[in-house]
């Protein structure tokens, strides 16, 4: 009881005012100390630490699923200990929202990973004036431009008079819309749509029926390409909508191909993938992966 009170006093649910920053600073210091402790683990134990953490990480969802959530009844009573296990399993389920919060926040901290890589590459290009360095400069300008107007549009700058703050905010909103709707959206959409052109040229110059199996694939593809779009229905619109002949309408053939032969093939692939996935998850979870890379000293 006493211990409980001490721990409540030391670790309150919420702190306010200046004390909050003391707590935050203390937490950061404790965290950094922990990190320093981790960094000083001698090399031969490092692999063990990584394997252990990986295993613990995997334990959460697997136990949450595998443990019984209700006491196991044996005859009139319950299996000794099973009530405790069920209680523990329920606790794991109830922790899901907290786990979601932590996963989302820690995951978001990884956001600068890709960015720092890009910064390194383009920073070097600008510094050394390698050919095309102005492109790298454009990278930096556009990176900061959208980020800054994004922040400015959301929160007014403190310490400015109302009018100036309002003007800046309004201009940022317009610029943000131009950068996002004008540039980001159209550049992304256009980059993606380039593949359509590559399909066109490949269709003419590379897709060859070199074998019967390629022929079977292209034949199926042809039927499905026609049957999915309105022109397919139009091609066989002279067939009746009902009766045995209706099943020969192109859209009916397409649909049958999709829900029977295609479904069977996809399921066969899915089953293979599923088992492969179980195997890969097990190898990762239990750190079983071997090979030159995984055997390297950490």
């Amino acid at each position, binding site marked *: 009881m006493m211990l409980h009170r001490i721990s409540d006093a030391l670790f309150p*649910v919420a702190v306010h005012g200046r004390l909050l920053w003391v707590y935050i600073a203390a937490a950061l210091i404790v965290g950094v100390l922990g990190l320093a402790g981790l960094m000083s683990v001698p090399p031969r134990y490092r692999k063990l630490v990584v394997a252990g953490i990986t295993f613990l990480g995997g334990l959460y969802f697997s136990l949450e699923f595998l443990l019984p959530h209700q006491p196991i009844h044996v005859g009139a009573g319950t299996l000794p200990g099973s009530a405790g296990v069920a209680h523990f399993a329920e606790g794991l389920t109830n922790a899901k929202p907290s786990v979601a919060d932590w996963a989302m926040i820690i995951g978001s901290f990884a956001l600068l990973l890709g960015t720092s890589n890009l910064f390194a590459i383009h920073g070097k290009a600008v510094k050394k004036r390698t050919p*095309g360095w102005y492109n790298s400069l454009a*990278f930096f300008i556009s990176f900061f431009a959208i980020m800054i107007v994004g922040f400015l549009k959301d929160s007014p700058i403190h310490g400015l008079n109302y009018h100036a703050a309002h003007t800046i905010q309004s201009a940022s909103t317009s610029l943000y819309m131009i950068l996002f709707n*004008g540039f980001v959206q159209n550049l992304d959409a256009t980059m993606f749509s380039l593949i*359509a052109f590559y399909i066109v040229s490949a269709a003419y110059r590379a897709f060859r029926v070199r074998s019967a199996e390629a022929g079977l*694939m292209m034949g199926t593809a042809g039927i499905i390409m026609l049957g999915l779009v309105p022109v397919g229905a139009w091609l066989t619109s002279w067939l009746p909508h009902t009766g045995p002949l209706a099943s020969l309408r192109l859209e009916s053939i397409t649909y049958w191909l999709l829900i029977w*032969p295609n479904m069977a093939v996809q399921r*066969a692939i899915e089953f293979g993938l599923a088992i492969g996935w179980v195997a890969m998850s097990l190898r990762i*979870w239990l750190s079983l992966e071997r090979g030159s890379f995984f055997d390297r000293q950490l």
Partner: protein
Amino acid sequence: MVNWLAAHSTSVAIWAGALCTFGIYTVLYKENKFYRFFEHIFIGLYGGYGVYVTWAEVLYPKWWKPMAEQGQWWWAFAAVVGSMFYFMYSNKHAWVSRVIFGMFMGFAAGGIFREFYEGYFPQIGSSMKPFTGGYANILSVLVFYVILLAAMSYFFFSFEHKHPMIKGSAAAGRWFLMVGFGAMFGATVMGRMTLFIGRLNFIIHSWAPEVATDWHYTWFKIASVAILVLAAALISYLAFRASKSGKTEAPE
């Protein structure tokens, strides 16, 4: 200026969009500097936007606000744990990042028991299709089983495909797989073409009306003609240079 921007931001965005679209499409003629330039702008904007949105929509409401404004001080630990990702750039302590990556990988791997059960048990169950009903249904079910079993047998690796039954079944399996791949091929072509049609929709139904509106201004007419002449000159110069050097450039 601010007011003009606010009133015309939609038009400006559409013009910028058209510029980007054509700038990227120049790569279809030939790999060139414009394309590289727009590509870099895209990477920059996307990265900067990602930082902004992750802060504004995830980290601020879910982390900073509870910690700094609602007094939940223990969220400070999240920053320490999150910083572990960045050890991958250190030569000496790169392994610390393996700890946090390992945790996330383990986290994903531990879900496999639930995912297999919820994801694939219904698939196993629905693969149990009775041979009943009309001839059409029995035929479809038969097709289903022949294809399912043959295609699965193709992916057996620890049996020699010498037994005539396995050999025949595996060979047939590869054939049947082609039907599935054909379906994927057709659907993929459809998807990719849709994206290009989306661009056409933008050019024809968003940008073209803007051009029509601006055509009323004399300066616009002059500018358009000037740009067209310049573009024609540039293309003919490039073509001339290419023919002089006598090299056929490699298509991209």
